[in-house]
Structure formats: structure tokens, C-alpha cells
């Protein structure tokens, strides 16, 4: 328990150990720990970013989906409208076609009637002339009595 030169020896040893620790051990370990801290911080940041981007992508997808639905609805609506229009147009066309056909048929009938009337009128005139010839016993000069005949034909 005496104070001896052990004191000096131990002081030297102490200084050497502290120096070695300060020079070769402490900085290396602190640096490794600092790097790991940075790596972990970066990793956490990256995870956070990824999470945020995922959320953004999710909400974006939702928006896109909603928009697409809307668009599809619009397209269906439009298609329905057009179909309606087409049906209406077809109906109108059919109606017009029918009317046209009816008109044509009526015109033809009228024409036939007129033709029949003309031919009957001509035959009646001839018959009338023949009848008058028989009644008068002589021939009627067609040229001479053309105006009478025409008047007659017009009365028929």
C-alpha cells in the first residue's frame, strides 16, 4: 500500500491506452455506427416515401376507375340515345315509304280509271254513232258532226 513508481508506470500505461483507444478504436466504431444510423434513416425514409407513393397511386387508381365508369356510363347513354334515334328514323322511313307506296298505288289506280273512262268514252261515242246510224238509216259523216260527237263524248 505504499505509493511507488507503480504510479508513474501506470500513468504511462493509462496514457498509452487512452491514446490507442482515441486513435484506433473510438473513431472506427463511431463511424460504423453513424453509417448504420444513416442507412437506417434512409431506409425508413424510403419506406415512408414508398408508402406515400402507394397511397397516391391507390387514390389515383380510384380516380381513374371513377372516371372510366363515368365515361362508360356516358357511352352507354349515348349508344342508347342513338339506338332510339335509329329506331325513330327507321319508323319514319317506313312510314314515309308506306305513304309513298300508297300514293303510287293511288296514282296508278287513278290512271287506270281514267284510261278505262277514256276507252269507255271512245266506245260509247262509237256505239252512239252506230246507234244513230241505225236509227237514221244513213251514215253520219263523222267529220261533219265531229263537234256534236265531241259534245256528246264530253257529256258522257
Amino acid at each position, binding site marked *: *500500500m*505504499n*505509493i*511507488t*513508481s*507503480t*504510479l*508513474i*508506470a*501506470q*500513468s504511462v*500505461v*493509462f*496514457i498509452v*491506452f*487512452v491514446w*490507442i*483507444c*482515441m486513435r*484506433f*478504436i*473510438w473513431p*472506427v*466504431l*463511431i*463511424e*460504423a*455506427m*453513424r*453509417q*448504420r444510423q444513416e*442507412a437506417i434513416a434512409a431506409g425508413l425514409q424510403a419506406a415512408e416515401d414508398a408508402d406515400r407513393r402507394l397511397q397516391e397511386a391507390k387514390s389515383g387508381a380510384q380516380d381513374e376507375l371513377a372516371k372510366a365508369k363515368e365515361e362508360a356510363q356516358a357511352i352507354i347513354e349515348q349508344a342508347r340515345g342513338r339506338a332510339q334515334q335509329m329506331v325513330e328514323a327507321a319508323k319514319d322511313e317506313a312510314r314515309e315509304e308506306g305513304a309513298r307506296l300508297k300514293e303510287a298505288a293511288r296514282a296508278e289506280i287513278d290512271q287506270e280509271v281514267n284510261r278505262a273512262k277514256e276507252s269507255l268514252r271512245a266506245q260509247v261515242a262509237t256505239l252512239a254513232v252506230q246507234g244513230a246510224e241505225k236509227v237514221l238509216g244513213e251514215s253520219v259523216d263523222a267529220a261533219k258532226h265531229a263537234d256534236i260527237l265531241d259534245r256528246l263524248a264530253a257529256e258522257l
Partner: protein
Amino acid sequence: MAETTGEYIQHHLTNLTYGYLPEKGWTFAHSADEATAMGFWSINVDSMFWSIGLGVLFLWLFASVAKRATSGVPDGLQNAIEMIIEFIQDTTQSIFHYKNDLVAPLALTIFVWVFLMNLMDLVPVDWIPMLATAAGISHMKVVPTTDPNITMAMALSVFVLILYYSIKCKGGLGFLKELSLHPFPSVWAIPVNFILEFVTLIAKPLSLGLRLFGNMYAGEMIFVLIALMYSAHALGLSEGILMLSGGAMQLVWALFHVIVITLQAFIFAVLTIVYLAQAHEVDEH
């Protein structure tokens, strides 16, 4: 064991000292009296051996981790070492707010080294001395921190650093001013101030070194006394009870001592940081 109780205790408290004796020349001391007769220029070989050995163990352990230190996933040992490093760094940063690359490694060295030296206290007191005796070595004190030379050497080294940084940061005049104008800022109070502050200053290394020494010495002494209880020779009933209770007491004291050795190492390191922080502190008023 053919020695008396007194001799047994004395043997445990005597260092293996190498020095010069007028009648024998350079030799190992074979008794406490011889060691005293060697005077200042002798050396406690056992203290130096164990403190250097444990210091080298500390440096080797930490250096081996530092060499393969990875910033990736650390293995178990690196984890443990980093825990200690982080603990010391946190402690340093919370006390010491100045730029200094020495303080944290200094505190680490003190903490781990003192802890390892204190840890030798938990080795049963007779094991290594008995092995040493068998090898022909007369004395062997295995706990270097029970040697005041060891603790005071560290405390004085820290004290030199305190003085160095005090003068470096405050200037010689500033340091003197702090010593002489401190508790009472008046020219008339300079003598009183100086006495007070000087005692405070001197108390730093003394308390630092002697606290560790005192704690470890007392702890070692109790281990020695407990060891005496169960080294009773005759095999009667009372001796049997004494041996059993001695074993139980050693277990309890060792468990308690686990706290003491850690705490003492921590106190030494923290006080070193505190004192150096005070040395860096530049007075505003």
C-alpha cells in the same frame, strides 16, 4: 494453510513488489516490511501485470470489433461493444458540450478498463494467489484497483488533463481568476477564495482516485474475511455452519459487488467527464 488469520489477511493485502533492498540488491519483496523498505523506486509487479493485461484485453476486444466493424447488420459481439460505445457517447454528450475528441474515448477507456480491473474482485480471493504460490510467486494481488498506485495514477492523469484544458480554455490568467475570484467576487476575498477553490481543485483527483481505491479495497477486504470463515480447518458442527454461512455470504456479497464494481467504474468515467467539462467552462461574469 499454515498461517494465522492475521498473516492470511496480510498476505492478501500485500503486493508483489520489485525493488532495491540495500542488503539484497534488486529483488522481489518477501514481506510487507521489505516492500516498504524499498521506498518509492519499486514497482508492484502484480498490479502492473493485471492492469496491463486487462487493458490489453479491453483494447484487443474493441479493436477486433473495430477492425471488422460493419455498418450493416452487426453480430452479437459488435452489438454489445456498440452498446457500451453508445452509452458512453450519450453520457458524454449529455454532460460535455464542447468540441473535444479526447473526452469520449477517455471515458470509454476509463469505464471499461476500471470495470475489468474491478471485475477481478469477483474471482474467488484464493484462486490466483494459490496458483501463484504453487508457481513460486510469494504474493499476488489480482485486483489492480485495490492498489492506490493504480487508481491515483489514473486520477492524476485526469488531473493533468483538467489543468491542461483549464489553462488552454480560460488562459493562465483566467484560470487564476477562477481560482481566486470565485465564490466571493471581491478583491478582499481573494485569500479565502483561493483556499476554497484550491481545496476544491485538489479534492478532484484525490476523491476520484481514493473513492475507487477505497471501495474496491473494502470490498476485497470483506471477500477476504468471508473466505476466512469457510477456511476453518477443524470439521466440527460449528465449523460446518460457519462454512455454509460463509458460502452464502460470499454469494450475497458477490452479487452486491456486481453493482459496486460497475457503479465505481461508471462514477470514475462520469466524474472525469464532469471535471473536464468544468475545465472547458469559460466564466461569463
